């Protein structure tokens, strides 16, 4: 048999197959989000049905207000925001300086081994240091239940990432530009601030996003460390219960509200994100 299909027909098949796959993939990834949204809109009774409904019978928009019935719940969002933001600024500041040192003065900064050791801090499971860290921070003047304990603790995870990524970005920024600026009469610090830093800015913004989202979403340590003076939103979510009953609708409503800041940030900065994450991938 001779294949009678024309080439363009065959391409159409590939396209259809491709779109079908894409549709399936979308369904797969978006379904949890969809279920989250409809659950947030359901009444408590409907969330407890044995056969789940895929569209709320009664739209319970009141859920979004009900989560703030306890006034401190809003403060938890604020605490999370403050912790994530301070931690991100610190990670960026320290990570940028350290990354620059590793990129430009590898020998003086301790060499490839030290740089790798810093990255290796992200390789152990965080839970392994949960208890030691608790006792460590418990012995500090401010104790564990404070904004500063989490700000500093999250540096353990974010600083290596920021340092390593910034090092890669700085390696890609041509050294000659700084040298030209020195010859043109600038001090190393000014050349760094005005020439090199703008070059790695997209990278810095993506690093900031990664750090911020990690600190914003962290639950394990927050759950153990804070809870009285300071509460992060992640430890508030499991508190939406009624006796032994989990209030799924309120949990989902609060989670959706907690998604707003990172999603907004991502939309605002997405152009930098893409450029930053592809820095060092595409060359000249």
């Amino acid at each position, binding site marked *: 048999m001779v294949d009678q299909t024309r080439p363009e027909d065959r391409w159409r098949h590939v396209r259809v197959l491709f779109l079908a796959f894409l549709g399936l993939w979308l369904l797969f990834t978006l379904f949890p989000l969809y279920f989250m949204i409809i659950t947030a809109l359901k009444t408590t009774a409907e969330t407890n049905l044995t056969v789940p409904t895929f569209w709320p019978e009664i739209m319970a928009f009141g859920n979004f207000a009900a989560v703030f019935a306890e006034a401190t719940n809003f403060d938890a969002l604020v605490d999370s925001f403050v912790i994530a933001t301070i931690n991100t600024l610190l990670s960026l500041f320290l990570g940028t300086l350290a990354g620059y040192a590793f990129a430009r003065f590898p020998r003086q900064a301790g060499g490839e081994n030290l740089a790798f050791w810093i990255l290796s801090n992200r390789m152990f499971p965080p839970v392994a240091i949960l208890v030691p860290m608790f006792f460590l921070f418990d012995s500090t003047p401010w104790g564990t239940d404070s904004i500063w304990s989490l700000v500093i603790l999250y540096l353990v995870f974010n600083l290596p990432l920021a340092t390593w990524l910034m090092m890669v970005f700085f390696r890609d920024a*041509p050294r*000659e*530009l700084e*040298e*030209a*600026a*020195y*010859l*043109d*009469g*600038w*001090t190393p610090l000014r050349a760094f601030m005005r*020439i090199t830093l*703008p*070059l790695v800015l997209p990278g810095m913004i993506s690093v900031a996003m990664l750090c911020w989202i990690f600190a914003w979403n962290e639950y394990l340590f927050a759950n153990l460390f804070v809870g009285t003076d300071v509460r992060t939103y992640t430890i508030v979510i499991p508190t939406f219960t009624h006796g032994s009953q989990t209030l799924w609708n309120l949990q989902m409503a609060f989670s959706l509200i907690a998604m707003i800041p990172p999603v907004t940030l991502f939309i605002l900065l997405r152009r930098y994100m893409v450029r930053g994450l592809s820095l060092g991938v595409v060359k000249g």
Partner: protein
Amino acid sequence: MSNVTLSKVNKIYGTGRMGVHAVRDLDLAVPNGEFMALLGPSGCGKTSTLRMIVGLEPITSGDIHFDEVRVNDLEPRERNVAMAFETYALYPNFTVEENLAFPLEVRGVPPADRRRRARELAELLRITEILSAKPPVLSGGQQQRVSLGRALIREPAVFILDEVMSHLDAHLKFQMLFDLKRLHQELRRTMIYVTHDQVEALALADRVAVMSNAELQQVGDRNALYNRPANMFVADFIGEPPTTFIPVERCDHAGSTRLHATGADLVFDVAAERVPGLDAHGGRKFMVGIRPQNLHLCDDGATIGGKIVINEYLGERSILSIVTGDVTLQALAPPETRMTPGEHACFSLDPRDVMIFDTETGALVT
């Protein structure tokens, strides 16, 4: 404007046995206003030398003076040097005009003056139409001009140009050579031009310093380098196609001195005035260097004969490769030369064009 003097300058990268000696006991003086080229193959130490002059690389030992001032311990910005980089190194987030005016901005020149100077320079370099563009959209030649302009805008003690033409195509390079020469004649400033391309070096520079293996081989104008190369490296490196070297042995016969090739039936006469030089050396074995340009095709009475193996036609000339005994020689011939491989050819050679080198050290004997 300054005289630049390097005395016994050394550069060693790394320490101990792992150290690499990049520049060895370099002595070089560039008088005020001279256009000096630093020429040598990759890895010969010329870029290290230049980076030490501008202050981007610490000096291991030795001294560098600008006029009377020892600059060893001065920061690059305190040395008042300007440099054009091989990679142009234009600030990508500044416009061309901002790039040009940048060195003036640093020195606190008022904005109006900066603008004026940038525009004058743009005029000189023929880049007025791209003043508001940013470097990433410019062509290689335009970037090249902007980077030259940024170096030229102030009045530094010395200009350093580092392989600035290695990324330009042949046509553009020709244009830039012309422009650079013109700029130097107009501005009369001390310039040091680093290159691995002898054509650029010989075309531009008043004098050329040839480096190889971390050491300075010879400093001189093009005639000195071409006709009196200090050693076999310079004889080989300067000139295109390269010099042919033939091992020879000295034979004195009936009052005249001749050199017999050891691997072929070739005899070179030595002019009487050069015999004392050979006598002073004392040895019997030498290397003879012959430039392809100095072999002239002729019909008879020839000094050198051989069989043609290749006839390369290059447009304005032909390169003939001739084999005799163990020796392969190259000769330049007019482009219309119709000689085919296998044919026998004869060449005449003026005894004064024979360069005689020491076999061991490679130094020119006479």
